[in-house]
């Protein structure tokens, strides 16, 4: 019961700052704004056109209604009171006319929000889908160089600010501008001096709110800082809560928290206070403006200066109110647009990231052997071949997929300036087991990342079955390489589907066979719903060892000719590993396997062991050869290295 929605990203506390608080300065905000407008307009141009029409119509209907109050009093009620035999038919006619306007206004309001709804939800969906599709095509480097929480907040916070902008800010801005303009025109028509008076008061209002906003802004910045501290502290302490318990550190931890919490309270209080008093100040300044207009207008009407009437005054006062409101709104929306721009910039940054390039043209195809020659065929035969179309003459070669991997003097660095792998040479024959050992940071995982081209090399060549990997289509290259990583990743789905991830069209029987191969079958059957048990939260209800068994099963069902095992059994205890080993041996049989491990039993029987240090292979050979060399491997192996 307690556990639902755990994976929601944490949103910042405290809500948005009040209007007038400067958001972060954004480079080229105008450019981003236009890009966003173009993005929204591309698919919904016609929609926007109708939205604009509807807004104009409903604003006009509203203004017209307000004007009607004057007509009502001046043209109908006052003459009627003077008439001996009042005839209401004229009034009825006028009211019917107004009613029609009102009707149009209501319909337009509805249409406007109905169309906007389509635009907003559609745009958000399109944006989400595009972002996701684009993200999936980005190279691993993007994910390695960006904090995952930051990528996530694109989908939550940033999209949300954009949604608000498209659905509220833009239409409301437009609405406000139209209202201000039409109310202003009406006011000018009614009375010029009173209009000027209203304008002066608007100036006063804007002035005071900027002043307050400036003050409040400082406190909001302060609050944001404190929120960051409190959140950071909570996150750290909650993840270490068990350690806190073990060390009886509860009181200390609470004490520290109280300190931070009080600081947050202090700044949150001040920031909120200033945000709260903004509204009454503006409202009462509005009243002052109203009173002034009433007094001056009363004088004008009384002395009948410039043909100003009581009805005119009544209408004007209503306009006075509806003039102040949109002005406040525009400045409020401006601020949220600035915030949305920051979000839009991050979203566009993602969309502008260069996707993973793939110039490969050698593809993997099903094949059949006819008279010792390889022939491409449609159906799955279990035999695979590289289809190599020569660019020069268009002739097509077929090379059987075997899993031979050759590194020829490979240099690699995550950036061009810093090379982390030097002169790597290795030769893995089909079916061989190659092991990498060495300390953390020696470059073991990096090498395996090059085989499947998660990263591209700076110099040298990597050949797969004799073909330069750069020529092979990435998707086909990766399909021919199975990977089991130290960090297992399971998806929210059934156990069955999680294993099937390795081969989407695998039958249930194939999945179960793979699970049996990895010795995962036994424990799966003990789960509440067996293979149909739904895993959540990255398989949180399984032990680390069990999760690794599942990821081994996943690689098994994919049935690739080559395997990369990156510390795949590190979390399985030796005894269980022995059970798994048997399955692993079966899995590795006949496949080229690259193993990274720091456990001896995993490495020992490899065909070749590479000892890496600081990005170089310093020793290579079989276990026995390396032991007899009495070098680094021997040291690691016997544990005599300390003090050496």
């Amino acid at each position, binding site marked *: 019961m307690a556990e639902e929605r755990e994976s929601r990203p944490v*949103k910042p506390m405290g809500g948005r700052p009040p209007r007038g608080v400067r958001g972060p300065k954004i480079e080229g905000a105008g450019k981003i704004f236009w890009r966003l407008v173009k993005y929204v307009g591309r698919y919904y141009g016609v929609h926007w056109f109708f939205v604009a029409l509807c807004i104009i119509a409903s604003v006009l209907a509203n203004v017209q209604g307000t004007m009607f109050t004057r007509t009502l009093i001046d043209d109908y009620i006052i003459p009627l009171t003077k008439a001996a035999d009042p005839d209401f038919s004229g009034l009825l006619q006028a009211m019917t006319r107004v009613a029609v306007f009102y009707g149009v206004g209501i319909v337009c309001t509805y249409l406007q929000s109905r169309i906007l709804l*389509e635009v907003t939800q559609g745009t958000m969906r399109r944006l989400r889908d595009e972002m996701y599709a684009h993200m999936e095509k980005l190279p691993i480097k993007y994910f390695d160089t960006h904090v995952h929480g930051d990528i996530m907040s694109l989908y939550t916070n940033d999209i949300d600010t954009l949604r608000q902008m498209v659905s509220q800010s833009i239409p409301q801005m437009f609405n406000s501008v139209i209202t201000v303009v039409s109310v202003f025109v009406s006011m000018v028509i009614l009375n010029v001096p009173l209009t000027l008076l209203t304008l002066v008061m608007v100036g006063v209002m804007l002035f005071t709110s900027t002043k307050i906003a400036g003050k409040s802004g400082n406190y909001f910045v302060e609050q944001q800082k404190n929120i960051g501290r409190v959140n950071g502290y909570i996150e750290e302490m*909650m993840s270490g809560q068990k350690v806190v318990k073990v*060390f009886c550190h509860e009181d200390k931890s609470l004490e520290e928290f109280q300190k931070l919490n009080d600081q947050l309270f202090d700044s949150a209080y001040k920031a909120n206070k200033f945000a709260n008093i903004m509204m009454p100040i503006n409202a009462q300044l509005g009243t002052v403006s109203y009173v002034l207009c009433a007094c001056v207008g009363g004088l004008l009407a009384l002395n009948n200066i410039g043909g100003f009437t009581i009805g005119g005054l009544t209408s004007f006062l209503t306009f006075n109110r509806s003039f102040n409101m949109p002005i406040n709104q525009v400045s409020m929306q401006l601020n949220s647009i600035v915030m949305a721009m920051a979000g839009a910039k991050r979203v566009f940054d993602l969309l502008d990231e260069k996707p993973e390039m793939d110039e490969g043209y050698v593809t993997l195809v099903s094949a059949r052997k006819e008279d010792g020659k390889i022939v491409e065929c449609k159906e799955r035969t279990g035999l695979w071949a590289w289809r190599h179309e020569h660019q020069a003459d268009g002739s097509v070669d077929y090379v059987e997929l075997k899993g031979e991997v050759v590194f020829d003097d490979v240099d690699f660095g995550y950036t061009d300036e810093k090379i982390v792998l030097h002169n790597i040479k290795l030769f893995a024959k089909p079916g061989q087991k190659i092991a990498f050992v060495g300390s953390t940071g020696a470059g073991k995982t990096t090498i395996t990342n090059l085989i499947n081209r998660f990263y591209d090399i700076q110099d040298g060549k990597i050949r797969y079955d004799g073909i330069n990997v750069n020529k092979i289509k990435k998707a086909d290259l990766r399909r021919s390489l199975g990977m089991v990583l130290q960090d297992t990743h399971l998806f929210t789905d059934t156990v069955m589907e999680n294993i099937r991830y390795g081969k989407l069209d695998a039958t249930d029987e194939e999945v179960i066979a793979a699970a049996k191969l990895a010795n995962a079958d036994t424990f799966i059957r003990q789960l509440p719903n067996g293979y149909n048990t739904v895993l959540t939260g990255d398989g949180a209800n399984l032990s680390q060892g069990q999760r690794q068994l599942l990821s081994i099963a996943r690689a098994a069902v994919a049935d690739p000719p080559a395997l990369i095992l990156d510390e795949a059994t590190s979390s399985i205890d030796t005894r269980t590993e022995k059970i798994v080993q048997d399955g692993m041996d079966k899995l590795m049989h006949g496949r080229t396997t690259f193993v990274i491990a720091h456990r001896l039993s995993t490495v020992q029987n490899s065909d070749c062991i590479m000892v890496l240090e600081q990005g170089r292979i310093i020793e290579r050979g079989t276990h026995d050869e390396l032991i007899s060399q009495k070098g680094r491997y021997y040291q690691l*192996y016997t544990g005599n290295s300390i003090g050496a």
Partner: protein
Amino acid sequence: MLKTLGKQIKEFKKDSIMTPIFMILEVIMETLIPLLMGSIIDDGVEKGDMRHIFLMGGLMLVFAVVGLFAGIMGGKYGARASTGFARNLREAMYANIQTFSFANIDKFSTAGLVTRMTTDVTNLQNAYQMILRMCIRAPFSLIIAMAASFLISARIASIYLIAVVLLGIVLMVIVKFAMKYFSQLFEKYDALNASTQENIAAVRVVKAFVREDHEINKFKKASEAVYNLGVRAEKMVILNSPFMQFTVYTCILLISWVGAHMIVVGDLSTGNLSTLLSYCMNILSNLMMLSMVFVMITMSMASARRICEVLNEEASIQNPENPEMEVKDGSIRFDHVTFRYNENSETPVLDDINLEIASGETIGILGGTGSSKTSLVNLISRLYDVSQGHVYVGGKDVREYDLEVLRNQVSVVLQKNVLFSGTILENLRWGDENATEEDCRRACRLACADEFIDKMPEGYNTYIEQGGSNVSGGQKQRLCIARALLKKPKILILDDSTSAVDTATDAKIRKAFAEEIPNTTKLIIAQRISSIEHADRIIVMHNGRVDAVGTHEELLQSNNIYREVYEAQTGGNGDFDENGGEL
């Protein structure tokens, strides 16, 4: 639930009461102003009484000032009440979490607790402010305006009354349907975000299996579901404003018509008519506001529920009434101990365990994944309570001890251990606040942590990043052992705590333990035979039971499991160390 939350208002009760009072004062001022306005028109403009206009205008300004004062005070108190409430909520949750036992902590995930203390509290803070400032204000304003209308003209006011009732019903229906769709939408939205997060974390798997398109399709489907529900929910919401407009316009027309008739026969003045018209907007927009507040409150209910779950969670392990304050020695005895994490589960995690460990003994514990090694040692420092049977430490049932006393004497180095941001010294002093630097050095020497600390440029003052991300796995483990040693415990438990430490260092640590703290009972869980083979006795765990107990030689002869593991690890000492590069 309201009671639980209400308790947390505490010292902000005054602010919570003052806020609505000032809000009401502000509303009264706001409502009186149109009344005066009508008077200006009727008694001033129409009768040509300039004095009256200025008098009323002056009065209006006074009201405006009072209104301003009330508004500012209301805003101030409201801010204090709501942010204070939020502070108390956070603190209460944090304090309660500190009392949680391991079982309680397991129930909530870390992420879950963090969300509750951040996002959920913010939601409640906003909702509370809304309640204090709007929930009283809006209905009050509505009632006052209504009453004022009745004073002017009962006939016209009854039009409002009917409009309010009708619009109220319509709004309620809309809100009810919208809420239903929205809660479905949020669920789907959360699921979408969860799966996106999963995808980002698992990107290597996705790419390695070339499942990009598969993932994109999965996402598109989920995204479409969100879209459909979003459209459905919003479709309900957008009905609000046309209904509102319809009611307002109808009212204006009706009032104008009725009002015109009344003015003609002399039952109403023109000033009153314009006052009534301005109340019209006031009444109906307050109703609108009320329905919005209602939506907000309903939406924050989920947050309130989650917060209450934490606040109402009772620690499953509590101090006994007259606790034993001294642990006599480091002896341990398990007497027919059965343990389950969940009372309802059929198969126990530990099944009828009987063990006797003398003070000062070194015990190795070995067993496969899921053989309940960790569960066994967690019972000793009472991180969990047994389901049946007894665990004795120093001759007394662990449930008789004061928790802090017990845990200070039984020091556990957890399997999933954590260092906190702060210097190495600060981290070490978790074990003993008053430890001198010399004490810390000694503990580090024992744990073989001194060698790498001394090589760090700032030595013991080196700053450890959150989660210890700037030290290697093996270094982290050694620091954690040193930290536990500083407690000078009678029992030391190492739960797979040297797995990332190379074999030679591991041996050195064991040697130091034997020589320097011979009287401490040591329990060592390990996967490497070499880590435990020299122990006085070794316990072999299998499926929640003790499979065998004995020395290395005995077990090698008599126990199948032990022999198998030993054979699997034959040859050298087992591991290639991750820390080889530190030499």
